[in-house]
């Protein structure tokens, strides 16, 4: 009996405990008593939910895409139900967001997440969220009450969901209850995603390296703050300014090791984060006034470019409450009780990242306990936190601070210089941590705005992340405004030291200190009802040379903006379908200037002798020539071979032209190369460093790029053995959606895709790799039908409403997105207005 009992006990124990921190207990996972089999994937057609904290009835219609339309008597109840729906449909996403921001991932996945936790604790997102919660509670009780109701909804979903979603089984964890602090930390996550970065540090390292290598002018000429051919977002501040000189930086070279180590650590931790941590530059929005549309009313478009994941970052919802002006629809962010981008029955708005400079980095002379500031040694501020680790002991993590802000240090950085206790530390000052931001208040104002005055009043509260906010209303107004709190720095404006803050500042000297104020809202770049009849932003330069302040340190190189401007300027009467075509446009503006150059070089026997024209090169150029004269010219279509050949040659052209930079892993913006190709073909940058006795010029580099590009494709594993005509672009350019756990089984793709990193429909990846970010939503709002529930307007997200991999709404919209299609808004004003058969569920909350 003892033997039998012993074996049985061993059997049960072995199946009930994880054998390794990364492997769930197999018995708990597969048993049908609460294991994965019993997960509820259903969307019942009818359901009555008894939520004890509601003050009135709420009806929810889940439309054909599983997107909710919430109809409530009271706004506070609508917010609670939105929380419930976020919790029900995106429970694991909520858990990951909360844990990542708080530095609590290692608690559930073990040591592998420790560096991610250190990073997020170091940049103090959770701490800032907690401070902000105290501020909101004290100054805006109504908003705080909404947050409390919202988290009550989330927690009700957690408490009543029965068997947890699959991801919780895999990790062997349970979801944590939400608090208002978690919600306001979400605001900080967006700040982190869109405004925190080490660009200044990276640029400093690059400049030092270039100067050491003898390329002192490279920073000015190849990495200017304002890249060539910019077309400013706003039309009221002149055209783009020219380049400016860069202020000197006096850091000693040994300090660079620390800077490099910090950059590397942050990049590694960001890359491994489940929730996107750092975005590149992307997003399009534009608006056309009634004078330029077929309908006589404004049409507004937006597609924000973020990392692709499953589930996607956005959750589409329509919220209507009878006791307030709330009747808005658009993209909500799970964890926040607001429609971030969307429309109501009066106005619509969309956003692109503005690239404003909200953060400065400072280096200090320091020892292990003190740092030097303006000739005096000050002790570091210090706090030590314990990071819980699954399967191990908690790890202590010390965070230090200076007069400017938090010191970046994961505890493993090289510290003292050789033979000395004196070293360098790096700290940052960031608006997200220095001020009580009011972005939630702003967005709440957007959701309820009835006209431009109300909208702008709300926009003034939009602190971070700075955005170019495009606006339209049913009265025919259009506008664009750059928003956000951009600090004034001492001795810095648009014409004086404008580049200084793009590099690490000398913190010990107190260089270019913030003076405690921000550029006034009314003086931020903006345009209202312009004569040209449309406005476009695609992360390019916000204002021309007449703008007086320094405020934007990063911007896109401008090809998407140029293309969209071209299309809108050439069509005085655009329709909703035209707008959809622009959002799906895959015209590569760089091919417009480079393709003729390639053919010109090839056709010239002097620059490209016949003896060097192999069969493959001849075939490839013939394909490019046919592309150049076809209706698909410059279009990066997945079924064509020409885009493959073009992209390979372009890649080689950039690398060969800037061979001096190979050691630094840096390439200038493509528009810099465009400028050199068209305006300075004999520039010194075209001369190849490794050759002696010859001076190469632009045609020489293009010739080599053609030869090497074609050879690269022919030698690739993917295309090997295929004729150039069969080098379809979709074979080498694909798109991919990772799951928050990075498990391949839960991901989508790769799918062959059209487009490139600089087409209006973007897919940011080089050849032979899958693009992992691009449009995170697409929205077209047509005001001609505002009084018919916007029935000609469209939306889509590249994913679905559900985070459940077994739900048909996990990727149903992704398929639409890949085909360039949308779904209607179903912006009905009552639950009963939905025609039978057009929705899948009707739930009553009491």
């Amino acid at each position, binding site marked *: *009996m003892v033997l*039998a*009992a012993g*074996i*049985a006990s061993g*059997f*049960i124990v072995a*199946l*009930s405990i994880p054998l390794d921190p990364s492997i769930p207990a*197999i*018995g*708990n*996972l*597969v*048993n*049908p*008593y*609460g*294991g*994965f*089999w*019993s*997960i*509820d*994937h*259903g969307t019942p057609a009818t359901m009555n939910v008894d939520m004890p904290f509601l003050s009135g009835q709420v009806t929810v219609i889940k439309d054909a895409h599983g997107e909710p339309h919430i109809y409530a008597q009271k706004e506070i109840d609508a917010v609670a139900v939105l929380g419930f729906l976020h919790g029900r449909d995106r429970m694991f996403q909520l858990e990951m967001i909360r844990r990542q921001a708080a530095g609590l991932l290692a608690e559930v996945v073990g040591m592998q997440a420790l560096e991610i936790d250190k990073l997020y604790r170091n940049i103090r997102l959770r701490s800032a969220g907690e401070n902000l919660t105290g501020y909101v509670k004290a100054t805006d009780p109504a908003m705080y009450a909404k947050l409390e109701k919202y988290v009550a909804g989330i927690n009700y979903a957690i408490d009543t969901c029965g068997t947890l979603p*699959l991801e919780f089984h*895999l990790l062997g964890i349970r979801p944590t209850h939400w608090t208002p602090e978690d919600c306001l930390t979400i605001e900080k996550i967006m700040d982190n995603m869109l405004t925190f970065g080490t660009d200044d540090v990276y640029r400093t390292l690059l400049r030092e390296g270039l100067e050491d290598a003898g390329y002192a002018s490279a920073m000015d000429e190849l990495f200017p703050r304002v890249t060539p051919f910019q077309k400013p977002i706003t039309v009221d501040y002149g055209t783009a300014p020219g380049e400016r000189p860069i202020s000197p930086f006096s850091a000693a070279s040994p300090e660079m090791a620390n800077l490099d180590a910090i950059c590397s650590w942050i990049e590694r931790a960001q890359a491994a984060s489940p929730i996107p941590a750092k975005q590149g530059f992307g997003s399009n929005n534009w608006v056309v006034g009634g004078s330029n549309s077929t309908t006589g009313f404004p049409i507004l478009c937006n597609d924000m470019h973020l990392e692709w994941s499953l589930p996607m970052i956005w959750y589409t919802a329509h919220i209507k409450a009878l006791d307030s002006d709330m009747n808005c629809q658009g993209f909500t962010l799970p964890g926040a009780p607001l429609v971030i981008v969307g429309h109501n029955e009066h106005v619509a708005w969309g956003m692109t990242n503005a690239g404003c400079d909200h953060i400065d980095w400072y280096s200090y002379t320091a020892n292990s306990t003190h740092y030097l500031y303006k000739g005096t040694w000050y002790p570091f501020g210090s706090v030590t936190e314990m990071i819980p680790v699954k399967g191990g002991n908690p790890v202590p993590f010390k965070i230090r601070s200076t007069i400017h802000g938090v010191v970046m240090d994961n505890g493993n950085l090289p510290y003292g210089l050789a033979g000395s206790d004196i070293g360098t530390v790096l700290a940052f000052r960031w608006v997200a941590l220095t001020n009580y931001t009011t972005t939630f208040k702003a967005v709440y104002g957007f959701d309820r705005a009835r006209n431009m005055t109300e909208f702008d009043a709300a926009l003034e509260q939009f602190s971070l992340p700075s955005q170019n906010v495009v606006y339209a209303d049913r009265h025919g107004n259009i506008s664009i405004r750059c928003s956000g709190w951009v600090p004034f720095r001492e001795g810095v404006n648009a014409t004086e030291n404008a580049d200084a803050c793009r590099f690490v500042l000398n913190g010990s000297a107190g260089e270019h200190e913030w003076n405690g104020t921000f550029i006034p809202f009314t003086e931020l770049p903006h345009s209202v009802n312009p004569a040209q009849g449309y406005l476009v932003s695609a992360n390019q330069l916000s204002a021309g040379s007449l703008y007086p302040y320094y405020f934007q340190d990063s911007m896109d190189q401008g090809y998407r903006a140029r293309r969209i401007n071209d299309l809108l300027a050439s069509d005085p009467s655009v329709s909703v379908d035209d707008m959809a075509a622009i959002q799906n446009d895959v015209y590569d503006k760089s091919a417009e200037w480079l393709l003729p150059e390639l053919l010109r070089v090839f056709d010239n026997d002097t620059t490209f002798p016949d003896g060097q024209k192999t069969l493959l090169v001849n075939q490839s150029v013939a394909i490019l020539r046919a592309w150049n004269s076809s209706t698909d010219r410059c279009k990066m279509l997945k079924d064509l071979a020409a885009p493959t050949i073009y992209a390979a040659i372009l890649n080689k052209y950039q690398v060969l032209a800037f061979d001096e930079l190979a050691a630094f892993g840096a390439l200038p913006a493509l528009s810099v190369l465009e400028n050199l190709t068209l305006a300075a073909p004999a520039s010194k940058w075209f001369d190849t460093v490794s050759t002696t006795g010859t001076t190469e010029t632009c045609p020489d580099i293009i010739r080599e790029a053609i030869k090497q590009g074609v050879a690269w494709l022919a030698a690739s594993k993917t295309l090997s053995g295929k004729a150039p005509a069969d080098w379809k672009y979709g074979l080498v350019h694909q798109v991919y959606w990772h799951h928050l756990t990075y*498990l*391949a*089984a*839960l991901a989508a793709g790769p799918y062959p895709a059209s487009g490139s990193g600089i087409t209006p429909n973007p897919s940011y990846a080089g050849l032979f790799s899958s693009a992992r970010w691009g449009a995170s939503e697409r929205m077209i709002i047509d005001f001609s039908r505002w009084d018919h529930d916007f029935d000609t307007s469209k939306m889509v997200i590249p994913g679905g409403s559900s985070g459940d*991999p*077994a*739900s048909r709404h996990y990727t149903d919209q992704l398929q639409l997105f890949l085909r360039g299609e949308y779904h209607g808004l179903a912006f009905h004003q009552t639950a009963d207005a939905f025609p039978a058969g057009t929705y899948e569920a009707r739930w009553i909350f009491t």
Partner: protein
Amino acid sequence: MMLTRGSEKLQAIAKKHAFWLAAAVSFAAILLNLTTIWQLCIIPPAIGSLLFIKERARLAWWSGFLGVGLSWLTIVLYYIATQPAMVVADLLIWIIIGEPGLGWIAIVLTVAIGACLGGFGGVIGFAVQRAISKDSMGNAEATKER
């Protein structure tokens, strides 16, 4: 003595109604689903063999094995019929062994775990019953000697 006699009667019933015995064990195991504590599934076969099976440990093992195995299979089939559970099974096995389309392995694994649990329960019940029987016999012998 009374216990031994009662047990013999139950054994006779078990032999006569073996199918219904397995069904009862299955039903009891399914009822335990309400508890969401899967480990409790060891109890019905243990009680079953404690009360009904005297002679062969193998019979105790197989009755528990089949009883709980069938009950788990029934529940799994219910979920497959009413939910996209097979989609998740495919994903889960894909995650674990890296190959898509092998969700059936999850069914086999699940049923095997349940069946083994039932088998162990049966054997434990049988062993307890044997220990009690021996104890009763021992007591009876001792009474005789006195």
